[in-house]
């Protein structure tokens, strides 16, 4: 087709045809614009607007970074998230590698168990941990009876307790995400590494892990986002005693105190920015590893 023909064929589409071709996009577009784009835009404008009156300001962000309570919340959130996703990805890697080597039948049963527990989150999970490790929890009682101090003195309602609990929802989700990536490790590679008298450990460090790095990083960012925005479990367990970002954000909108959506928006953006930084960083590292492949 020549250029002119192309142009005329483009012009030929009548408004009626446009409607018949594109009306099915409308509901989706409306939903995405009204509940994804507009709210995001309004969050940004809220975060830089004054509490009362008009005009732009950065005082909301100033307040976020200078008030001790928010500093503590940011610190707690970061340490909880980094701890649970770094330890998480390590445990996830070991578990999914072990699972990958098992027989099919066992594997599918184990995967069903993972799918099941990956939906056991939020408020029910918090209650479950209170039942076993709360102040009068079953294992705490047992620890006291048999004199096992580690169990008897376990304090679930601290940041360390939360960290232990966060691993619970990271493990099944991460393992289910990472498991398919092991299919990419060819048996021939392992055999040739063996022929060259490399130990299995050497093989994984030098070949396996680098090949799987894109998937590992993808899983890591999912774990990171998952932990950073976790709300229900810490809300029920520690509430105000261990301030973390999602709880502080929610408090500024619907808390017992006067709601301050401008400050809340700024804090929410800090949460979002943290996540974006990790995603961008992991994509950069991913790209570096992909380059090596070529």
């Amino acid at each position, binding site marked *: 087709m020549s250029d002119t023909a192309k142009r005329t064929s483009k012009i030929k589409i009548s408004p009626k045809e446009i409607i018949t071709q594109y009306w099915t996009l409308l509901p989706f577009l409306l939903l995405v614009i009204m509940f*994804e784009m507009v709210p995001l835009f309004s969050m940004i404008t809220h975060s830089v607007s004054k509490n009362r009156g008009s005009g732009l300001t950065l005082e909301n962000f100033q307040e976020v970074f200078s008030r001790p309570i928010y500093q503590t919340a940011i610190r707690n959130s970061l340490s909880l998230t980094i701890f649970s996703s770094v330890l998480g990805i390590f445990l996830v890697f070991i578990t999914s590698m072990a699972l990958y080597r098992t027989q099919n039948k066992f594997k599918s049963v184990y995967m069903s168990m993972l799918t099941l527990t990956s939906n056991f989150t939020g408020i029910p999970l918090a209650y479950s941990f209170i039942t076993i490790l709360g102040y009068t929890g079953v294992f705490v009682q047992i620890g006291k009876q048999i004199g096992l101090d580690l169990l008897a003195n376990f304090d679930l309602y601290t940041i360390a307790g939360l960290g232990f609990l966060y691993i619970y929802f990271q493990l099944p989700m991460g393992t289910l995400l990472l498991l398919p990536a092991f299919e990419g490790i060819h048996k021939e590679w392992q055999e040739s590494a063996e022929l060259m008298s490399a130990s299995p450990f050497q093989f994984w460090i030098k070949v396996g892990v680098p090949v799987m790095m894109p998937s590992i990083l993808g899983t890591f960012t999912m774990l990171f986002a998952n932990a950073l925005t976790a709300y229900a479990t810490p809300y029920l367990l520690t509430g105000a005693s261990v301030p973390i970002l999602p709880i502080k954000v929610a408090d500024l909108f619907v808390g017992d105190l006067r709601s301050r959506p401008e400050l809340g928006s700024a804090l929410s953006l800090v949460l979002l920015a943290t996540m974006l930084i990790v995603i961008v960083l992991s994509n950069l590292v991913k790209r570096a590893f992909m380059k090596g492949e070529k």
Partner: protein
Amino acid sequence: MKKRHPVGILALTLCGIYLILPLLVTVVYSFTGDWSSILPRSFTLRYYADLFQNPQFWSSVLRSVIISIIPVIITCVFVILALYTTVIYNPKLEKYIEVACTIPYTINGIILATSVLGAYSASQTILGNRLFMLVCIYCIGCLPVTFRGIRNNMYAVNIRQLIEAAEILGASKIIAFFKVVVPCMVSGIMVSVLMCMAALFGDFAIIRMIASTQYMTAQSFLYESRNSPVQLTSAIVTVLFLVTLIITLSVLFVQMRDKTKSTALPVTEEEE
């Protein structure tokens, strides 16, 4: 050549114990009268009787079920409609739809809820209605998984050939799409639908932010029971877990059936 390593077996065992134990103890606890030493002293069904006689509990479970079904269906319909245009008329648009559907991975839960609340809480129109907000936020939350499920299935059923064949037989494009293509995808979409339902059923963060007072779901009911005896909360957790179990087992059942039924393209759920 699959070797069993003692370290691997140990890892799987420990991970399994860690994941199963809290659940198991909670279920057993809900049947106990008193568990203050190593083993429970007595067993009872009292707490289940109490719970099942509470009309508030049943209505909250019903509300949870309703609110986890409606948004998923709406999202499915919207995404299928949108992909109809992109597949038939303008494939270039698909990547923009994909971007829109991937954003909720990052802007999830609390961030999404606060942004919508900030934008519309003062609105006098339907946008300010808390239930409407809740449904729409859930719809956005379902986008990533629904989009993946639907798109993978659309390519698995070879949509273009099907539509051409139907057109030769005299059907219009839109009829061909909804009478031939969509029914082929139903069982494939079921997996993502059920996964979204399970996730929405377990939500507490969004519901608390948006409509905690107007619309009490099972999760809020569980939260409000925090001063009740541990046996009662364990019983609620057990019942809610059973509901999730039913949904999850349906997922596994659908997956199993599809695997044996066809050798169609595997549906890969990759992140991002």
